């Protein structure tokens, strides 16, 4: 208690010291940057899950090949969750002596629990509805066209005569873009009564639940403790909408990167300020020690002071972070139209804890060493400085930085890249600065007097110059990454979705329809037509072993082994695909070859050289795995898990799938196209594209917000770096003035000194930021062909050197005005 009182008193007395204020400001900034981003990221994550819930029709679900035990629904009911039962199965519909295989979904009246079921009723026009009443069915456009029906007509389904109550426009479909058969939604009770869901049917039963996040989470925990029926699986919002997910992941990575760099900048400022504080306190500590204060107590006092500073600083940081996050959410929340998401407090607390870790981690080494000042230092100041070749204590800030990078980056890869890059930048900056100092020593005697004095000043403060160059480089690299590389990355991302990104997909195009379709499309202004063959098949065997006899660790494998698969072929490697093992097949491979994506490699433990057998139509094809591809699923292109070589696959029974761009406002022309080719499914992805574009824009805004804090943190680093040598400079200036140095001479020397320092830091930072940006763009953000803007980076580096010089000069203004009398007064 007494120690705490002493620490508080000490803090009150020393609060006017600039280094303590720098410590407090840096810590607050670190907490604000980390807190805002973490709070926003958590909220966006929750908002996104809520959004995704709209896409599956509930917050969580279970799909099962058998009827689920009643317990599952009962447990959900007990927890106050809303419940919807349903089932999906293929069935043939008949009307006017025509038949059509439909992808039928049987639903109760509660469906959907989340999201919207959009219907077009003959009488009311477009409406939002729920599952059909008994005796009613909804058919989509393709089904209506195929059966030559319209809303209000009757259709035979499962042996029952059903009224087509509405045309099905859109349903929460789990983000499944490519349903192969036309769709229908019928009443669940009707399906049950028709015997469509009984034993032996191909129905997949589904239970959806929705409610408060805590209740849903509790139910999920309970479900996970149960042995789910054979083949059953959880339907989670996280699994849906890979494209949206990818956009949000990138967004979150950008924001985390920004916050992380701000926190690291704050750490550098804290380290510099703590160094200065320790130096200032040396005499006081020596005196305390001489007067008999034990070392432990001195350390306790120093840490107490630090703690007394940390508590209000982190609290303030938390409050500001929550305030800003709340304000920023007001803009971002329009992205999420579903359930309201409360302001989460956890991330702000975590940020405060991280802020304390940054403060302690970066400030501890100089303070701990300060406690070791021997009492004899009161007699001889030089005794206070024990130079160590290696000080293990300084591994603490390195460890804190690494933990921060690891915990904040959200990806091991980004953490690794950042850690390696920042260590590299620090090492190169230190090396360059050492070379500069060596040159300074050897060039100085023959140089211009101002340069000579500047070089001599740099050389005089060798240790400090190295520290300043390194700290400035780290600060600048973080700033350049944020100010130039991050926007360039965002721009690269935006360029991936240019205005003419394909916004329509078409399925089921037949060989003989291709020329006509292409012509019709061109006539309505369609562009960027990309057509790929599509064969539907089933995986039969791997390396000659029937798939039914194989077992795989990955649970998804069984599901995929049971499914109908979509196969395609292409002579060239499609864009946004990258071969990571094996080779892309030549024009005429000796035997059929297949290229698989990494998910398939992982699911079925496949490797190059394995053989996969598929049944397609009436025939089979045995293909050797020739290559493994990494596919960027976030691109709005038609991509396939499985690509065969065209030489062997082109004779397989197939249709065509195409993507194309049609400017908005061509609804009528597209409707005509749809009527002309009634077997085709036209899918509009404009809404999805819009949403992704909106995310990119909003992330850009958010990055700018956080960038503001980073700039502040950068300014703090600069101020701390300059302040670190201020006392020494003042003494030196007084001495030089006494010896007759003119102010202009001191200013010119300082300008040379800071310009050199800025140049070393700026250039190291520019190339460091370019390298890191290139690496991040390629490995983390997967932005194809991203080239960091080297020109602006170098210009910024030169600008930074100028700013460092000007700020250095401004900082030394006071120094050059130091009265030479100061020396006489000091004795």
């Amino acid at each position, binding site marked *: 208690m007494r120690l705490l009182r002493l620490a508080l008193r000490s803090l009150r007395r020393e609060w006017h010291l600039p280094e303590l204020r720098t410590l407090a400001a840096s810590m607050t900034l670190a907490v604000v940057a980390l807190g805002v981003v973490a709070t926003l990221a958590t909220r966006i994550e929750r908002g996104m899950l809520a959004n995704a819930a709209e896409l599956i029709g509930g917050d969580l679900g279970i799909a099962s090949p058998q009827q689920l035990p009643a317990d599952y629904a009962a447990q959900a009911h007990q927890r106050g969750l809303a419940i919807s039962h349903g089932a999906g199965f293929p069935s043939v519909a008949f009307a006017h002596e025509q038949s059509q295989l439909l992808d039928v979904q049987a639903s109760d009246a509660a469906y959907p629990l989340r999201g919207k079921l959009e219907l077009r009723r003959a009488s009311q026009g477009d409406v939002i509805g729920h599952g059909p009443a008994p005796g009613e069915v909804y058919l989509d456009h393709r089904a209506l066209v195929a059966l030559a029906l319209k809303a209000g007509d009757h259709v035979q389904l499962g042996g029952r005569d059903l009224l087509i109550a509405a045309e099905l426009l859109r349903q929460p479909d789990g983000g499944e873009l490519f349903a192969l058969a036309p769709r229908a939604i019928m009443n669940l009770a009707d399906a049950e009564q028709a015997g469509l869901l009984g034993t032996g049917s191909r129905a997949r039963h589904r239970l959806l639940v929705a409610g408060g996040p805590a209740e849903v989470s509790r139910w999920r925990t309970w479900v996970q403790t149960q042995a789910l029926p054979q083949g059953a699986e959880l339907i989670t919002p996280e699994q849906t909408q890979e494209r949206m997910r990818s956009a949000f992941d990138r967004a979150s990575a950008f924001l985390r990167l920004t916050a992380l760099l701000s926190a690291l900048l704050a750490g550098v400022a804290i380290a510099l300020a703590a160094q200065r504080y320790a130096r200032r306190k040396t005499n006081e500590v020596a005196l305390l020690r001489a007067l008999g204060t034990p070392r432990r107590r001195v350390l306790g006092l120093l840490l107490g002071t630090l703690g007394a500073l940390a508590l209000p600083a982190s609290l303030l940081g938390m409050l500001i972070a929550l305030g800003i996050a709340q304000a920023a959410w007001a803009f971002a929340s329009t992205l999420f139209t579903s359930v309201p998401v409360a302001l989460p407090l956890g991330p702000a607390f975590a940020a405060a804890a991280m802020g304390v870790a940054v403060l302690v981690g970066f400030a501890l080494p100089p303070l701990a060493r300060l406690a070791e000042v021997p009492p004899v230092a009161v007699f001889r100041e030089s005794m206070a400085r024990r130079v160590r070749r290696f000080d293990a204590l300084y591994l603490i800030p390195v460890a804190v930085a690494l933990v921060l990078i690891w915990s904040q980056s959200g990806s091991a890869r980004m953490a690794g890249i950042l850690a390696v890059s920042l260590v590299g930048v620090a090492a190169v900056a230190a090396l360059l600065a050492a070379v500069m100092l060596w040159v300074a020593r050897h060039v100085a005697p023959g140089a211009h007097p101002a340069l000579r004095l500047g070089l001599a000043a740099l050389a005089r403060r060798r240790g400090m110059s190295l520290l300043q160059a390194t700290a400035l480089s780290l600060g600048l690299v973080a700033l350049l990454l944020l100010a130039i590389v991050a926007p360039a990355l965002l721009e690269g991302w935006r360029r991936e979705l240019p205005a003419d990104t394909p916004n329509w997909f078409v399925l089921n195009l037949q060989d003989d329809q291709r020329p006509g379709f292409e012509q019709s499309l061109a006539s309505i202004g369609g562009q960027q037509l990309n057509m790929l063959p599509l064969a539907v098949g089933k995986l039969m065997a791997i390396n000659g072993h029937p798939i039914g006899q194989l077992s795989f660790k990955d649970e998804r494998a069984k599901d995929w082994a049971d499914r109908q698969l979509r196969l395609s072929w292409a002579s060239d490697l499609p864009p946004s695909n990258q071969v990571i093992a094996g080779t892309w097949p030549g024009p005429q491979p000796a035997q059929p070859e297949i290229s698989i994506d990494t998910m398939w490699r992982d699911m079925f433990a496949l490797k190059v050289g394995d053989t996969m057998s598929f049944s397609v139509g009436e025939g089979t094809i045995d293909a050797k795995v020739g290559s493994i591809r990494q596919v960027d699923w976030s691109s709005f292109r038609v991509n396939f898990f499985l690509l065969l070589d065209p030489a062997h696959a082109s004779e397989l029974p197939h249709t065509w799938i195409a993507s194309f761009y049609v400017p908005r406002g061509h609804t009528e022309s597209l409707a005509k196209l749809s009527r002309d080719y009634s077997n085709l499914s036209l899918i509009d992805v404009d809404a999805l594209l819009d949403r992704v574009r909106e995310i990119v824009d909003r992330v850009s805004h958010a990055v700018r917000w956080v960038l503001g804090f980073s700039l502040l943190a950068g300014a703090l680093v600069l101020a701390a770096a300059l302040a670190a040598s201020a006392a020494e400079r003042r003494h030196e200036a007084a001495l*030089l003035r006494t010896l007759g140095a003119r102010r202009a001479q001191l200013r010119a020397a300082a300008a040379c000194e800071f310009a050199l320092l800025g140049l070393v830091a700026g250039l190291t930072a520019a190339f460091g930021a370019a390298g890191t940006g290139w690496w991040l763009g390629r490995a983390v953000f997967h932005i194809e062909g991203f080239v960091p803007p080297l020109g602006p980076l170098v210009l910024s580096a030169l600008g930074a050197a100028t700013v460092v010089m000007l700020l250095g000069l401004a900082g030394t203004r006071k120094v050059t005005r130091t009265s030479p009398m100061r020396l006489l007064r000091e*004795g």
Partner: protein
Amino acid sequence: MSDSSPAVVGNVLLDARDVSKSVRGPEGQLDILRGVTLQVQTGESFAIVGASGSGKTTLLGLLAGLDTPSSGHIALDNHALEQMDEEARADLRRRLVGFVFQSFHLLPALTAEENVMLPLELEGSDDARSRARAALDAVGLTPRRRHYPAQLSGGEQQRVAIARAFVHGPRLLFADEPTGNLDQRTGHHVSDLLFALNHDHRTTLVLVTHDPLLAERCARRVELHEGRVVTRGAAELTI
């Protein structure tokens, strides 16, 4: 006051007339120096003595042009200091003046040789290093020229400071308690060195000291008490 400056004639290097210095403190105006008048001839040694707080250091600062008097006139080598701005005074100091301080004021990050080179670097001298070595040789510190101040004893540090003060051949050397931080024997060696340089180079020596023995070695001395000259030694009058 400028009309009185031409009064400095012949071999008077430093001429102070009726110099006063006051500062404003929390308890009103504080008079540190009150009407001090003195003259120092070229090549002589001159001591300013007095108790702590008598105004010795302030007077030294004014005589060296480090500060300006509140009133009165000071001429250094016929230049009226109170009419010059800080830049011009700095220029004058660089050409004419050397300093030795009680706490040595060596820059810790520089070797002995680099510390001595400082005034030469300010002049833009091309042979700074060789001249610095010669100066260190003169004070017997050639073997220590690559040492940093922290690696030198107090006496050695003060000898480096003396070498720095002499290296650019000043006509006037100000020493503020040059032996104040040294033991008697070392102090004696240092003062021997100062007087030898004063004699050999005909450098005028103005020193502030508490040490009566050191003061007695000077050709002339004044004693200050509460900002006034109360006694003058040797050829000076006693008030």
